[in-house]
C-alpha cells in the first residue's frame, strides 16, 4: 500500500517542484520585463554584444553541463551494477565539470565587473522629457509641473545625474594630473576624456579674449560621448557605459545566473561529500545507487534550468 515510489525519490521530486516554481518565477519575470520594454529606436532591450555577452562561451558552458549530466547518470548506472571504481570516476568527472562551469561563469562575471555592467551603475535616460507636452496654456503648464508626470521626469533626471557623477569620478581618475597646459602632449584617449570632463563641468573657456559660459552637457549626451569613447578606444579606458534598459538587463542577468551558479555550487559540494563517502567506505557500492540517483535528479534539474537560461539570455 502507499505510493509506488521510494520516499527519497518522492521527497526529492517535491523539492524539485519547488525549485521549478522558483526558477519559473525568475525566468517568467525576465520574459515579461523583456517583452514589456519599448522597442522603438533608440530604446531596445540590450543586445548580447552591447553587454559583453559572448554566445560561444554560453554554448561551451551548456556543453559542459550536458557532459556532467551524462557522467552523473553513468555514475548511478555503474553503482547500480556494482562497478564501484567506474562510479567513483564518473562522480569525480561530474565534480570537475561543475567546477569548469563555475570557472567559465566567473570569467563572464569578471568581464561584466570590468566593464562596470552592474545593476544600478549603467547610465540610461529612459523615454521621457523635462518639457511639458505641446498645446498647454500657462496655467496648465504650471499645474503639469506639480503633478505626478513631473515627479517621474525628475526621477529619470535623478538617474541620469547619478550616472554623471559616476562617470565624472572615473574621468577625474583617468585625467589626474592633466590640465590645459599639458593635455596636448597626452595620448588621444586622454585628450578625449579631458574634453568630455570639461564639457560635463560647464567650463568657461576664453573665446576672443572673453570668458564664455558653456553649459554642462545633459546626461543623455554624456552617455552618448562615453559610448563613442568606449567604441573607439576599446580596452584602453574604464568607463561605465550608457545602455538603455541596461540596469534592468543586469539585474535579470545576475539574479538568474547567480542563483543558478549557487545551485551548481551546492551540487559540487554534495558530489565532494559523495566522493569522500566512497573513498572511506571502500568505493560506491550498489547500496549507494539510490543516493546517486537522487543527487543525479537534482543535477539534471540544474542542467535543465541552464538549457533554458542559455537561449533566453545569450541567443534570443
Amino acid at each position: 500500500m502507499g505510493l509506488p515510489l521510494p520516499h527519497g525519490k518522492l521527497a526529492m521530486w517535491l523539492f524539485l517542484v519547488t525549485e521549478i516554481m522558483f526558477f519559473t518565477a525568475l525566468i517568467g519575470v525576465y520574459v515579461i520585463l523583456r517583452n514589456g520594454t519599448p522597442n522603438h529606436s533608440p530604446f531596445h532591450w540590450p543586445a548580447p554584444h552591447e553587454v559583453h555577452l559572448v554566445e560561444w562561451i554560453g554554448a561551451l558552458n551548456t556543453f559542459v553541463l550536458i557532459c556532467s549530466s551524462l557522467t552523473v547518470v553513468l555514475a548511478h548506472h555503474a553503482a547500480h551494477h556494482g562497478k564501484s571504481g567506474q562510479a567513483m570516476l564518473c562522480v569525480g568527472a561530474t565534480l570537475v565539470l561543475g567546477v569548469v562551469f563555475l570557472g567559465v561563469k566567473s570569467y563572464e562575471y569578471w568581464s561584466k565587473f570590468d566593464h562596470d555592467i552592474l545593476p544600478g551603475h549603467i547610465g540610461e535616460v529612459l523615454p521621457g522629457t523635462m518639457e511639458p507636452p505641446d498645446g498647454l496654456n500657462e496655467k496648465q503648464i504650471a499645474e503639469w509641473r506639480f503633478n505626478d508626470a513631473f515627479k517621474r521626469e525628475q526621477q529619470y533626471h535623478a538617474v541620469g545625474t547619478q550616472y554623471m557623477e559616476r562617470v565624472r569620478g572615473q574621468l577625474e581618475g583617468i585625467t589626474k594630473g592633466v590640465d590645459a597646459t599639458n593635455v596636448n602632449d597626452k595620448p588621444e584617449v586622454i585628450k578625449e576624456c579631458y574634453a568630455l570632463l570639461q564639457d560635463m563641468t560647464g567650463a568657461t573657456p576664453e573665446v576672443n579674449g572673453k570668458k564664455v559660459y558653456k553649459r554642462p552637457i545633459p546626461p543623455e549626451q554624456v552617455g552618448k560621448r562615453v559610448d563613442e569613447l568606449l567604441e573607439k578606444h576599446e580596452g584602453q579606458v574604464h568607463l561605465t557605459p550608457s545602455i538603455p534598459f541596461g540596469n534592468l538587463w543586469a539585474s535579470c542577468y545576475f539574479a538568474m545566473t547567480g542563483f543558478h551558479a549557487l545551485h551548481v555550487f551546492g551540487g559540487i559540494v554534495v558530489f565532494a561529500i559523495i566522493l569522500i563517502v566512497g573513498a572511506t567506505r571502500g568505493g560506491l557500492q550498489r547500496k549507494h545507487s539510490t543516493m546517486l540517483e537522487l543527487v543525479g535528479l537534482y543535477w539534471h534539474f540544474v542542467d535543465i534550468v541552464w538549457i533554458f537560461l542559455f537561449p533566453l539570455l545569450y541567443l534570443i
Partner: protein
Amino acid sequence: MTDEAPKPEAHDDDHGRMVRLYLTVFIALAVFTLLSFVANFAAADERHWISKGFSFLIILGVAVVKACLVGYVFMHLMGDWRKLYFMIFPAFILGAMMMFVLMPDIVLAWQR
C-alpha cells in the same frame, strides 16, 4: 527500485542498452545545442540567412526538446512519469499563469 538480483545475461543486455541510450541522448543534446547556436548565428543582423522569427522558433523548440530528453531519459521519467506528473504538471501551469497574469499590465500596456 527493487533489490532483486537480475539474471546475468539480461543484466548485461540491460546494462549495454541503457549505456547506449544515455550516450545517444548525450550526442543528441550536443547536436541540438550546436543547432540552436547555428540558428542564432544565421539570423544575426550582418547575415540574415534566416528570419529572426524562424530562428526564435528553432532555438525555443530545441530548448524544449533538450529539456524533455534530459527529463525523460536521464531523470528516468520514462518509467516514473505516471507516478510524478501530479506534482510536476501544476508547477508548470502556475509558471505559465504567472506570466499571463502579469502580461496585460507590463507587456500590453505600453503598446496601447
